[in-house]
């Protein structure tokens, strides 16, 4: 179902008008309210009045993660603290976290956006939704929560951890929708299989997955293991959190709520704007955020934008499922390698959802990749020949896909660390 026909199915010309009007306002607002932006615009020689509509967006400078970090904690807020009713923050794995603030209106908008994406994934008020996202500074838990509440679903705020208990709740409460990271969904399926619970006894029908890049083949695995429709949704706390975009059941990309965010694709190296259908880095400008507006925020996520009308009836632009980031891209002997590429190969060869880890090391002047794959019972016939054949097959396919030689190492079960949140796939030991 379409939650908000007016905006989700808006005529594209009309939408452009709305975006232009909102862009002009937000540019003026950040110039007036946020010293960082005033300074940045002045540096670039831009007056807010230079921006007359969406067509002028490429005149604006980018906002980078560093700028957000440098202004820690509240430097980029465009409203006084008494108007800010909620704070969230990124995990801050690489130093200080990024703090974002929401006004009451921002929270309402956020819930609306979530209502849109869960509705387009097929969730209705009849559903019982188990949210296995952390309820804390991370935007996943609370973000999904209020939107799902708006739709009228029954929510189980299970949060992360204690996997066996999660499964007990699913069985006893009759959960129909799972909200988690895709890697946690796979891990849970593993635990379910081990504990001998019959998946058919669960009522699960839809998965709303996000918070990390995942491949199409991983989707197939999740769908096969759980017997559900696995949908992707996308968001980042710097923009609003989850709810920036989500998949409809046509699976032709994720619909972006363009009345709130202007998406762009740029060349990650030159920063040059690319057109629809071209692959590059996603950039977002928030149009309606009060507490924490951002102009042309570089997400580091790699995607493609499409603007043709979707069969579901929505007219909003769609983005290709994010399967890689400019920062999880490894450059190995000059070749760009994404973990998602390796994952796809593993799925193809094993026919199973692999638990894997990529270890990058430098020996002498040469970079080496080792892909460690956990053995599963189904893969083991007891024969050396079969194991070697499998290693060779994986190596061969990786070589075809990546054009570099990769070492494949089969390891014992449960030796690779499991994650209840975002999976850590790459261990880079190189000291450069």
């Amino acid at each position, binding site marked *: 179902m379409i939650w908000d026909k007016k905006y989700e199915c808006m005529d594209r010309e009309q939408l452009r008008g709305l975006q232009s009007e909102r862009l002009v306002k937000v540019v003026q607002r950040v110039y007036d309210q946020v010293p960082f932006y005033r300074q940045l615009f002045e540096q670039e020689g831009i007056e807010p009045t230079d921006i007359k509509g969406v067509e002028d967006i490429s005149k604006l400078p980018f906002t980078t993660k560093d700028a957000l970090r440098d202004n820690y904690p509240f430097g980029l807020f465009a409203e006084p603290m008494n108007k800010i009713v909620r704070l969230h923050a990124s995990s801050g794995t690489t130093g200080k976290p990024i703090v974002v603030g929401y006004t009451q209106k921002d929270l309402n908008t956020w819930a609306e956006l979530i209502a849109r994406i869960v509705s387009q994934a097929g969730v209705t008020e009849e559903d019982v939704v188990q949210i296995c996202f952390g309820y804390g500074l991370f935007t996943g838990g609370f973000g999904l929560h209020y939107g799902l509440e708006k739709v009228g679903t029954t929510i189980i705020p299970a949060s992360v951890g204690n996997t066996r208990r999660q499964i007990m709740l699913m069985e006893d409460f009759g959960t129909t929708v799972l909200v988690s990271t895709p890697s946690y969904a796979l891990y849970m399926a593993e635990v379910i299989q081990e504990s001998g619970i019959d998946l058919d006894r669960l009522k699960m029908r839809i998965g709303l997955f996000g918070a990390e890049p995942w491949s199409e083949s991983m989707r197939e695995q999740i769908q096969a293991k759980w017997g559900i429709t696995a949908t992707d949704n996308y968001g980042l706390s710097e923009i609003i959190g989850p709810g920036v975009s989500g998949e409809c059941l046509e699976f032709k990309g994720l619909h972006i709520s363009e009345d709130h965010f202007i998406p762009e694709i740029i060349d990650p190296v030159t920063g040059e704007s690319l057109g629809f259908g071209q692959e590059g880095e996603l950039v977002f400008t928030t149009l309606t955020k009060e507490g924490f507006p951002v102009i042309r925020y570089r997400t580091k996520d790699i995607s493609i934008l499409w603007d043709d009308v979707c069969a579901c009836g929505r007219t909003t632009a769609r983005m290709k499922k994010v399967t890689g980031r400019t920062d999880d891209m490894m450059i190995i002997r000059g070749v760009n390698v994404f973990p998602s590429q390796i994952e796809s190969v593993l799925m193809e060869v094993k026919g199973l959802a692999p638990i894997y880890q990529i270890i990058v090391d430098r020996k002498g002047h040469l970079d080496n990749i080792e892909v460690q794959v956990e*053995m*599963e*019972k189904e*893969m*083991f*016939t*007891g*024969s*050396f*020949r079969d*194991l*070697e054949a499998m290693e060779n097959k994986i190596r061969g396919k990786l070589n075809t896909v990546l054009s570099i030689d990769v070492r494949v*190492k*089969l*390891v*014992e*079960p*449960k*030796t690779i660390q499991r994650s209840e949140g975002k999976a850590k796939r790459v261990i880079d030991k190189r000291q450069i």
Partner: protein
Amino acid sequence: MKVNQLSVFLENKSGRLARVTKVLGENNINIRALSIADTTDFGILRIIVSQPKEAYNILRSEGFVVTETDVIAVCIPDKPGGLGQVLEVLEKQSVNIEYLYAFVGNTSTKNALVVFRVEDCDKAVEVLKSNGIQVVDEEKVYQL
């Protein structure tokens, strides 16, 4: 006539073999025959034990990747040319041997036991028997 052998996938790191034997020992399971082969990264431990089913379940529940494989145990006179004779019989009937390992079950009988993993167990048993070679009953092997 088919003997249930367990194959265990082991990563090449210290303590893994010890762990298998410890687990089996704690559960009163006796190892009758053992062979281990390895590459740089991993090894395959092959064992014949007194209670194969229990051992399989225990090892699985301990998180090991285990699989059951049918092998045959052949009693070979412990004298020069003994093994050669058996191999010749199998070769003549085109029975492919994947691997084998030998052990001496009971020194007083002057016989050696050789465990064969072949592509077609039933055919091998038939071929061996019809050539007067003694294939040992599985229960006897478990209780050696």
